[in-house]
C-alpha cells in the first residue's frame, strides 16, 4: 500500500514518461494516457495484488487488462515504474524491434502484457474469460479492465456486458475512462449513447460506481468499494470522470491531443507543469 501523496508524485512521473515517450516516438496517444494516469498509478501501486515477476496465467494474483490499447504509453510507464521491466526501456517506445509496440502486444514478450489490444472493444470479453478461469480454479483474486468511453460504440462490449451479468461474473471490475472525447470530436457529437451510461449498465444487471479519476483519495476509496462489491453476483462497472490531457493546461479537455505527439516546445511547456519525482528515464 502506498500513501496518497506518494501515489500523486508517482503519477506525476508517469505523466512525464508519457509525454517524453510520445515526443521521442513522434507519435502515440498522449491525451487518454494523461487522463488515466492517476487511476492506473493507483491500481498498480496500491489496489492490485500483483507480482512484477510476471506470470502469464495470473494465477493467485489480480489481473489487469487494458482494452483501449492506444493509451500504451501510460501502461508501459506504470509497468516499468512498478518493476516489470527496466525503466530505460521506455525510450524504445514505438521503435523498430522494441518490446514496447505502438499498441500493447504479447509477441515480444513484454512482462505485464497478457493480450494484444488496440483494435477496440475486445478487452471486456477477454477479462471476463480470465475471470471465469479464476472461478474454475477457486482463485479469489479479481480481474480489472480499463476501457475508453468512445470504445463503448463497439458492439462486442455489449455482448460482453450481457454475458458477464447473465453468468454472474462478479470477480470482474471494469472501469470506463469517461472523458467524453474521441478522435473525431466529443462522444456526444460522434455517436451519443442515447442516454445515461449508468442507467444502461444497471439495466444490464451490473453494479455501478462513480469515481473522480483525478482525485487520488477518491480513486482509492472507490476501488476499495469495488473490491467489497465483488462476489455478490454482479460484475462491477466504474464510471471514471476524467479529462483528456489532464493536467496540462494546453491539452486538457480537448480531443485534439488524442493521438498526436507534442512538439519540442510543447514538451518543454508540458514538463514544466509536472514535477520530476522518480527521475526521468
Amino acid at each position, binding site marked *: 500500500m502506498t500513501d496518497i501523496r506518494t501515489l500523486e508524485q508517482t503519477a506525476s512521473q508517469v505523466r512525464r514518461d508519457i509525454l517524453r515517450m510520445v515526443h521521442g516516438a513522434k507519435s502515440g496517444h498522449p491525451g487518454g494516457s494523461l487522463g488515466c494516469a492517476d487511476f492506473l498509478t493507483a491500481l498498480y501501486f496500491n489496489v492490485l495484488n500483483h507480482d512484477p515477476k510476471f506470470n*502469464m*496465467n*495470473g*494465477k493467485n494474483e489480480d*489481473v489487469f487488462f487494458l482494452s483501449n490499447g492506444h493509451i500504451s504509453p501510460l501502461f508501459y510507464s506504470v509497468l516499468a515504474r512498478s518493476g516489470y521491466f527496466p525503466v530505460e526501456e521506455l525510450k524504445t517506445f514505438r521503435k523498430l524491434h522494441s518490446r514496447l509496440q505502438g499498441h500493447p*502486444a*504479447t*509477441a515480444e514478450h513484454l512482462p505485464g502484457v*497478457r*493480450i*494484444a*489490444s*488496440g*483494435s477496440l*472493444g*475486445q*478487452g*471486456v*470479453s*477477454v*477479462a*471476463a*474469460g*480470465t*475471470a*471465469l*478461469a*479464476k472461478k*474454475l*480454479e477457486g482463485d479469489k483474486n479479481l480481474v480489472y479492465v480499463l476501457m475508453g468511453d468512445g470504445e463503448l460504440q463497439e*458492439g*462486442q462490449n455489449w*455482448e*460482453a456486458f*450481457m*454475458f458477464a451479468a*447473465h*453468468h454472474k461474473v462478479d470477480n470482474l471490475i471494469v472501469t470506463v475512462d469517461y472523458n467524453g472525447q474521441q478522435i473525431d470530436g466529443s462522444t456526444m457529437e460522434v455517436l451519443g449513447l442515447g442516454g445515461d451510461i449508468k442507467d444502461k449498465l444497471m439495466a444490464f444487471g451490473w453494479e455501478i460506481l462513480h469515481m473522480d479519476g483525478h482525485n487520488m483519495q477518491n480513486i482509492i476509496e472507490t476501488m476499495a468499494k469495488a473490491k467489497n462489491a465483488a462476489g455478490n453476483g454482479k460484475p462491477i462497472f466504474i464510471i471514471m470522470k476524467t479529462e483528456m490531457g489532464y493536467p496540462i493546461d494546453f491539452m486538457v479537455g480537448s480531443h485534439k491531443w488524442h493521438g498526436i505527439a507534442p512538439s519540442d516546445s510543447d514538451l518543454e511547456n508540458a514538463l514544466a507543469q509536472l514535477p520530476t519525482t522518480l527521475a526521468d528515464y
Partner: protein
Amino acid sequence: MKKFEVQNIKDTRSGFGAGLSELGKTNPNVVALCADLTGSLKMDAFQKEHPERFYQVGIAEANMIGLAAGLAIGGKIPFTGTFANFSTGRVYDQIRQSVAYSNKNVKICASHAGVTLGEDGATHQILEDIGLMKMLPNMTVINPCDYNQTKAATIAIADYENPVYLRFGRPAVPNFTSATDKFEIGKALMLNEGTDVTIFATGHLVWQAIEAGHILAEKGISVELINIHTIKPLDAQAILNSVRKTRAVVTAEEHQMNGGLGDSICQLLARELPTPLEMVAVNDSFGQSGTPDELMKEYGLDAAHIVAAVERVIKRK
C-alpha cells in the same frame, strides 16, 4: 486402388462431439463455449457431463472468441463451437488480435463448413474460411476427412499448445479411417500409392477422391492419393516427394480455389517443383440452397469432377 472399408455413414460434427466428450473426461482443463448451436455442434454431451466447464454465450460470437482468449490466459484449453461462417468471417478481427497475434491456446471448432450444409443457402455456406484462417500467423488449420479422424483430431489439438482452426461439416459421409489411428498434426497421410497423378484431398472430399481413384484405376490410370488433413502447417516434404514421382497434381476441397488447399499447394510447387495442376474447388462463387449431393455436383466437387480433373492434368504432363 486400395479398397477402404466403410464402417458407417456419419457426420464429422458428431466426431467432434465425441472427441470433446472424451476430452472432458481426460483433461480437466478443457472448457467449451457455444454460441446457441449446442445441438448442431454436438456439444450437448460435454454440456451435460461437465456443466461447470461449459459456457452458453448466446448469439454473440465476438464475445465468445474474447472469452476463449481470456480463459486460455487463465490456463484453460477453450474449445469454441459454432458454424464455420460465424467462427471465422464474423469474428476475424477478434481472432486476429486476441487469439492469433496474442498466440492464445484457443481451439476454434467450426461445423457446417462449405456448401454441404445444404438448404440453408449461401448466407451460411462459407467457402473462404480456410483461406481466412491460414493467412493468420500462428494459426494451425485442420480439416479432417471423416468421423473417426475428426474425433481423433479433436483429441489431438487439446495437447497442442497453439491456436487451432478445426473445420468439419454437417452431412453424413463415409467413415472409413480406423478408430484407433492416432492423429498427427501436420502429417500428410498416404492412402494409396500410384504413379500417374497425385490427388491431394482434404475434408470429406478425400472420400470423393477414393471413389475417383477406383474409376480411374478401371481406365488404367494409377492414382496416388494423399489426405492433407492439416492445411497449415503444410507437409511440404510429403507433397514434394509424391509430385517428384507422379509429375501431375489434382487438389480437391470444399472451399474456394482462392485461399484453399489447392492455393497452398500451388504456392509450394511454383517455388519448388513447377508441375501441371488442376483444382477441384469452388470457382469464385457463392453457394445456394439444395441437398448436399446436388450441391456437390453443381459446384463440381464430386468424384466425377475429380476424374475429369485427373484426365485433364494427365494430358498436360
